[in-house]
């Protein structure tokens, strides 16, 4: 009798353990189902972003011939203006008044004051950083006509000496715009191998694009100590079309 009750007790315990295991497997399945649902949602979001970027690129491609025409027109106008100024300068330096005043100008040059050190220091602070050697790619190209009030440069960067990129900024004609680094770029890591100091080499930096011509320098801070220019280019910014 007691042997029977022991056996049935063992059976109950075994069944309970089996039931517990089954509950656990069922819950694990549901948990994975939620994770996969979330992953799918993220992939859909990523796909939509890619479609939007493709549409934006197509739009930019359509605008490119117009931009080129505009740039050629500006270049021709600048050439004409330069030629007119050259003629004007030749006329001035060839005149009697200019030749007579030459000794006075030379004397004036001797007594001219040097520029104020503070002004120089300020300009030096805002001058583009010296170039460094980087492997980089820009997802959003700066080689374009800028039509909006602001623009965001996105890409990835790896210093060739392997040092850590601890900051990124745009120096636009002396105005500094600080961005953020450490964005994931799994495809870059897959292609270039693990980067000990830059495991997430992506970056983005937003900057204002006031109308006019500016010198843009995209710069990286290395090891938290020095800024180095990744790429420097002149850019044209035009008012946004109404």
């Amino acid at each position, binding site marked *: 009798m007691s042997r029977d009750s022991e056996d049935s007790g063992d059976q109950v315990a075994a069944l309970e353990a089996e039931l*517990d295991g089954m*509950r*656990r497997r069922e*819950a*694990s399945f*549901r*948990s994975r*189902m*939620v*994770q996969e*649902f*979330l*992953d799918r*949602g*993220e992939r859909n*979001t990523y796909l939509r972003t890619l479609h939007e970027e493709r549409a934006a690129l197509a739009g930019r491609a359509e605008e490119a011939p117009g931009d080129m025409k505009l740039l050629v027109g500006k270049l021709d106008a600048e050439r004409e203006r330069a030629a007119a100024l050259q003629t004007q300068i030749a006329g001035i330096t060839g005149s009697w008044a200019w030749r007579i005043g030459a000794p006075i100008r030379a004397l004036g040059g001797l007594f001219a004051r040097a520029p104020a050190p503070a002004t120089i220091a300020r300009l030096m602070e805002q001058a583009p950083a010296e170039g460094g050697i980087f492997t980089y790619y820009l997802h959003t190209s700066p080689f374009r006509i800028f039509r909006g009030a602001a623009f965001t440069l996105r890409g990835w960067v790896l210093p060739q000496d392997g040092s850590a990129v601890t900051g990124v900024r745009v120096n636009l004609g002396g105005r500094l715009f600080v961005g*953020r680094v*450490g964005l*994931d770029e799994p495809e870059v890591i897959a292609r270039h191998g693990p980067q000990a100091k830059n495991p*997430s080499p992506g970056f983005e930096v937003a900057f204002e694009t006031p109308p006019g011509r500016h010198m843009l320098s995209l710069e990286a801070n290395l090891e938290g100590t020095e800024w180095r220019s990744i790429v420097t280019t002149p850019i044209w910014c035009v008012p946004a079309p109404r």
Partner: protein
Amino acid sequence: MALDRHDTHLVRSRPAMNTADAMGRWQESTSDLAERSAYKKVWDRQAKELDVAMLAVAGRAGEAMDEDTLSLQAKESIDTLRSTVGIGPHDVILEIGCGIARVGKPLSGQCLHWFGADISGRMLSHAARRLEGRPNTTLVELATVGLQEFPGDAFDLVYCTIVFMHLFEWDRYRYVEEAFRVLRPGGHAYFDNFPLDTQHGWQVFKESAGYPLGRRPAHLSMSSTREELRTYLAKAGFEDVRVHDLPSGLIAATGQKPAGVP
């Protein structure tokens, strides 16, 4: 979108803030009452810094708030969940409005998997840092009111604590409806708020009433009645709906999704 824990390196650490500073920053971070429905904006503003976020979700910050104090608060919430709806080691749990994972962090050690959803991505970045090293946790930023990011029939327990006071009534019901959808048949739901007829509830009400008319903030706490919570759960389809008077002075409504409802 799901927030990966490896995004935490984007969160910049700041020196610890004292209570007075945190209170000042919190005041600065509040939005206007007219923006109450813009939950993402309102709560992202309040979550720029961890101390301010703590003040917003736990009522304390600076030297008055540390992990031990947070754990103590969380224990009370977990004990309440255990006594009202039960918690099992195999449970897959979802918290609506998890904030900095005040409850989720300790609760994740008592269940199979804990999912934390919040409309504020910034809150979740603080939560992600606190949940480092806990693989059975997942954080999800909600795009808007609702749980559209989640599949149906998935969770054993969906709970929402210290959140309803910041929502409009329609949005409270939306979350109850959504909880019903994402629960597995037989799963349990829990929602709490403060009522007017307890000492704590009346105190909160009086403090809120003290704001000048033009300076009421968007997150201002608004009470629920027992009947309101009971109606939400019943209308959403829950059965065995109960309203509990909690020792903290809050009221909580619980219900079970019928076993036969897919």
